[in-house]
């Protein structure tokens, strides 16, 4: 693919090259250095922006100062640098969280704008369309748990308490948590993928030059939509799990539905419902915070979008579970 023209310049027909991996970029970079050392030049035919970008990334720059030899304690210095970086990351996170909350108020107060109806649209995309999968999965988990617990309880002649266990488990733990995990995977990754690809394609830059604030234009509608829809989904999820328990109680354990509902109403109190809503709203905030922050901090090409999406799912599930444990400690210990 390379040939020589006059002047001994090295020419590369790179116009068909769509993607370069690190190795190819390294080879090109070397060729360029060698050429310049021998007073020749390396020319690329219609290189893609991506190719130039990769080459630039390898270029230390004309005035990059050689790293000065640093005297002193390298270990302490490395620890210090790492700690400093960590602290800055946390601070930026806090700033982002505050900005998210401010954005919601600015949007509500009309001080800054998004596309009309954006929140409704997100409510549909992030909330309504998640309902079937949430119901299906909580229903299946409900059936499984009820079956296992029901058999144990039956051995002790305590089948009647299946209603207590299912009520407590699904309102206090399984309903909100399972909903959050499903939405972290489904809606969290969707948010990150969308924002990251907007970032990569300069859509976010374009919005900024038009005077939009991405926290208001993009983040606030998603935050509102998730904080509204997730508590509602969690209620549905809890109800669905508990109903699955009812099926097992009636058809497997031979209880009457009236008794199940009677025991259930004694086990589940209004406070439990309240905490479903609060917990789910907090989970929603965590998921949207992570999804937006990770999505908006992407830079590079489309491969970065995929990696960002994965880290949103992992971080979303991780922090949701941590928050869930914190709630359990505070509420029930």
């Amino acid at each position: 693919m390379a040939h020589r023209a006059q002047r001994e310049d090295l020419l590369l027909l790179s116009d068909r090259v769509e993607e370069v991996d690190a190795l190819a970029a390294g080879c090109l970079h070397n060729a360029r250095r060698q050429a310049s050392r021998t007073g020749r030049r390396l020319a690329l035919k219609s290189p893609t922006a991506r190719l130039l970008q990769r080459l630039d990334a390898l270029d230390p720059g004309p005035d990059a100062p050689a790293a000065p030899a640093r005297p002193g304690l390298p270990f302490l210095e490395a620890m210090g640098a790492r700690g400093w970086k960590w602290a800055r990351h946390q601070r930026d996170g806090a700033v982002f969280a505050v900005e998210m909350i401010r954005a919601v108020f600015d949007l509500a107060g009309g001080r800054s704008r998004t596309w009309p109806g954006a929140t409704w649209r997100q409510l549909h995309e992030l909330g309504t369309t998640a309902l079937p999968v949430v119901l299906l999965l909580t229903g299946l988990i409900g059936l499984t748990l009820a079956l296992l617990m029901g058999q144990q309880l039956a051995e002790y002649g305590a089948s009647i308490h299946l209603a207590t266990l299912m009520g407590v488990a699904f309102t206090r733990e399984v309903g909100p948590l399972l909903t959050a995990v499903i939405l972290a995977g489904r809606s969290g990754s969707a948010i990150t993928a969308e924002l990251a690809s907007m970032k990569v394609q300069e859509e976010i830059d374009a919005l900024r030059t038009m005077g939009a604030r991405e926290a208001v234009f993009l983040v606030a509608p998603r935050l509102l939509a998730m904080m509204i829809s997730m508590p509602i989904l969690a209620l549905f999820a809890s109800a669905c799990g508990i109903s699955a328990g009812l099926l097992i109680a009636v058809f497997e354990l031979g209880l009457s539905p009236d008794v199940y509902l009677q025991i259930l109403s004694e086990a589940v109190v209004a406070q439990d419902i309240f905490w479903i809503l609060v917990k789910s709203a907090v989970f929603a905030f965590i998921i949207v915070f992570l999804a937006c922050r990770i999505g908006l901090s992407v830079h590079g090409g489309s491969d970065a979008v995929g990696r960002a999406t994965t880290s949103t799912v992992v971080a979303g599930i991780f922090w949701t579970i941590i928050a869930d444990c914190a709630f359990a400690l505070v509420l029930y210990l």
Partner: protein
Amino acid sequence: MPEPVLSVRDLRAGYGTREILKKVSVDVAPGEIRVVLGGSGSGKSTFLRNVLGLETPWSGEVRVLGENLAAGGHAADRARNHLGVLFQQGALVTSLTVGQNVMLPLVLDGIRPDGAAEEIARARLSRVRLSHAWGLYPGELSGGMRKRAALARALVREPRILFCDEPSAGLDPLTSKELDELLLELRDTLGLSIVLVTHELDSIRALAEKVLYLHLGEVLFDGPFQDALDHGPARIRDFFARRLDPADAILSSSWEILT
């Protein structure tokens, strides 16, 4: 000389601790087409991003219609409304239709996306000969159409200066020529100033009145295109010679020379 619409003084900028632009100054007059040239990595995009406020300059001054953008406040915000930008791939918002994209700057100013806003947007779209694409999504457009739609969006607030970063990148020569003609027409009818980064020799020949040549973050030449050809610094004459010289035809305008 009329008061410049854009005046950049001693702009220093970079990423992290790495300095990219060292004291760049330039004035752009009303109705002028200014082409920013330079090898790959010479800081052309960085220059545009700092002028547009997408990055914060380390020091120096960017004045649009006399207002210092760095000073902030309402005057700076109003001045910023006089800037329109055409990004390389168009950067249309994918979840909105072409019509909605064109109305977007107005919506951000608090105008409802119907009635008057729609009328203005349709007028802009017909100016870039894209009326038929009103209801399509960006994903349904070709590269050239996407750029024309983005151009309509950039024009909807009636900016005084239009910035374009390599508008012909990724376009075939014919489409690219049409885009150049469109830019010229817009300058002539609207009196826009245009600041344009390009590599394409054809575009440079068609559009360049004055050029700004950046090299390693410094201004190597600032003046009329013809002067640059006739008696600019050796590096610039070399830059064009390699692109103009028929004997060197293989190094046509589509070649990127890494120095």
